[in-house]
Structures are given as structure tokens and as C-alpha cells.
């Protein structure tokens, strides 16, 4: 039995001011997904609607968007979980990224930062040590949802952001030959670990239990301990000052 749902879809092309919402009424079953609805809008109602999607099973991260204000992977977000028959769905692109068109954002700022912190996801060797220690961050699918959900990211486009900070923690925990001094420096920066307000929104929306908030807390603990050590002329921060 199909439901009737009104999709209110964010529309914008580069340079268009102001952006607006287009309403589309869609016949959709409650156990279909938000992405199914958007594809149906594109197929039968408006061929100009742009959105990103690929795998349809939560492993590529392309279809990340905001559904009723909250970041979701639209391919695994079921209609019955976010609206009701005759209800409305507000669909918007991720926040904190430049909008390319409609639901498509430019996620390259996040990837640049992943490079800055040693890109620990792309690895030349298999994890060392016990696998359970290294499971979490490797599950990151780089969807950008944590960056969109982060309230600090909203206030500063200089903030390193949850994904890159989690990656920094990962690289420091297991450097594999990467020079971690520059990563310590990035993490200790005014726009990094100290900027996080511990709102846990990144972990709240993460589709793969990457636990970026936990990684930031681990990094913060490391940095606090190193700072205290540096008072006594010890540890990595003290050595850094010398060279």
C-alpha cells in the first residue's frame, strides 16, 4: 500500500540567490527509502534535479543529505522512519560544504584535510596489532555527515572538523612511517581539538560507528597530558619547541 508523501527538496544552482524549496508529491511505500523517492522525482517529475548516489547499500557515502534537518544516508533511510502517510519530508544538502547544485555538495575540503592528517584510510599495509583496536575508524566511508552535523563547523570554516580529527587520532595511534609531528601540530591548533564543544553530533549521525567524537576525546587526552609533561620539559611538545 503506497503512501503519499510530499518531498520539499532544496533547489539551488551555483550563484542562484536565494535558493528555494520545490514541492513534489510522491507515491511511495513505507518500506522504500528516501533515495527511492528522490530517484522517482528525477525519473518522472523533474529531470533537472541533481543528487549524488552510487551503491544503494550504505558503503559509498555519496547519497548523504539532510532529511528533516538531520544527516542521513538516504539509501538506507526508510520512509516509515522519517514521515507518515500524507506527511512531509524536507530534503536538503549537507551543511558546511560549498553547494554545487541542489543536493550535491563539494566534499573536497574534507578530503584535503584527510590528506593533511596522513590519510589513514588508504593504507599500504594491513592493520598491526589486535584488530579490535583498529576497527572503528577504518569503517569511515567519508560521507561528510559528521562535518555537516557538527555545530562547531557551523561557526568556523577553519575548524579541522570531526572526520579529519578522527583521522589524525588514528594516524597518531598508528603512524606507519608518517611523520606525526605535523599532525600533532594540526591537532593542537586553535581550530582543532580545543575548538570541539563535545556536542557528540558527529557520532550521533555517523552511519558506520566511526566514533569521531571518541577520537577527538582521545586526542584531547593525549594533548592535555603532553601539555602537562611539557611544563617539565618532557614529551613531544617540549621537543618540538627545540626543533
Amino acid at each position, binding site marked *: 500500500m503506497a503512501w503519499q508523501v510530499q518531498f520539499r527538496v532544496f533547489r539551488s544552482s551555483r550563484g542562484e540567490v536565494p535558493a528555494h524549496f520545490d514541492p513534489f508529491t510522491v507515491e511511495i511505500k513505507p518500506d522504500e527509502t528516501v533515495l527511492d523517492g528522490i530517484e522517482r522525482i528525477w525519473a518522472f517529475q523533474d529531470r533537472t534535479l541533481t543528487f549524488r548516489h552510487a551503491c544503494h547499500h550504505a558503503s559509498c557515502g555519496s547519497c548523504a543529505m539532510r532529511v528533516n534537518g538531520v544527516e542521513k544516508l538516504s539509501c538506507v533511510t526508510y520512509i516509515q522512519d522519517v514521515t507518515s502517510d500524507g506527511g512531509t519530508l524536507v530534503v536538503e544538502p549537507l551543511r558546511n560544504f560549498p553547494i554545487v547544485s541542489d543536493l550535491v555538495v563539494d566534499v573536497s575540503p574534507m578530503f*584535503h584535510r584527510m*590528506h*593533511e592528517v*596522513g*590519510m589513514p584510510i588508504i593504507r599500504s599495509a594491513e592493520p598491526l596489532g589486535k584488530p579490535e583496536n583498529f576497527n572503528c575508524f577504518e569503517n569511515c566511508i567519508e560521507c561528510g555527515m559528521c562535518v555537516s552535523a557538527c555545530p*562547531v563547523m557551523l*561557526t*568556523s570554516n*577553519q575548524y*579541522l572538523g570531526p572526520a579529519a580529527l578522527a583521522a589524525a587520532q588514528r594516524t597518531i595511534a598508528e603512524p606507519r612511517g*608518517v611523520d606525526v609531528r*605535523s599532525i600533532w*601540530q*594540526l591537532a*593542537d*591548533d*586553535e*581550530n582543532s581539538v*580545543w*575548538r570541539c564543544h563535545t556536542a557528540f553530533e558527529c557520532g550521533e549521525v555517523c552511519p558506520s560507528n566511526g566514533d569521531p567524537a571518541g577520537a577527538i576525546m582521545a586526542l584531547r587526552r593525549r*594533548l*592535555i597530558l603532553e*601539555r602537562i609533561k*611539557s611544563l617539565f620539559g618532557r614529551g613531544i*611538545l617540549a621537543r*618540538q619547541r627545540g626543533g
Partner: protein
Amino acid sequence: MATITRVTRWGGYPAWAWILQAASGVLLVVLLSLHIIAQHFVAPGGVLDYGGVVAHLRNPVIFVLETAFAGSVLFHVFAGVRAILLDLAPSKAQERSINVILTTLGVGLFVYGLVLTLVVVTR
């Protein structure tokens, strides 16, 4: 590996701002509990009359505790205000003004409180 192009400042200044905010917060939990218990739960009706306040502040232990309390609460409050203001994305020049204004306010209120206390206990 890509080069680092973001402007970074690594003098430990942001780190110490955070650590001192946390440390003053923890200290305040202790000092504020003492402050409230000392001021309100030993006094009839929850507040001390004038003689009570003066006798209270003349006790050197209380005086030291109250001064430490005033110092840490002012630091914590104005460092907190600074954190909120920094989230409004100020320019570097605006950030410097924020630092100067808030430091002046904090130090000014601390000195005011100290002078007020000394005037009251010595007359």
C-alpha cells in the same frame, strides 16, 4: 603527502586556554560549594546580616577562600564568554580586542571585589 596550507598557530595558547577553563571549572565546583555553604547555610534565613558578613570575611581562611573563588570565577566566566564570542568568527584584530576587553573587565572586577572586601573588613 599534501602540504599544510591552513594557517596554524602552535604556541600552546589555545591548549592552555582550554585546560585552564577546565581546571578553573573543577576548582569552582569545590570553592563554590564552600562559598554557598559558608554564606547561606550557617546563617539564619539563608543570608548573613552586616555583622555576620564582616566577621565572616575577617576570618583569614575564609578571606583566602573567597579571594580564590572570586579569581577563578572571574577567569572562568570571561574565558567562557570569550569562547562564545570566538564562535562568532571574529577577525584576528577583533579577537585581540575581545581579549583586551575581557581581561580588563575580569581584572577590574577582581580588584574592585578585593578593595570592597578590604574596605568593609577594616572600617
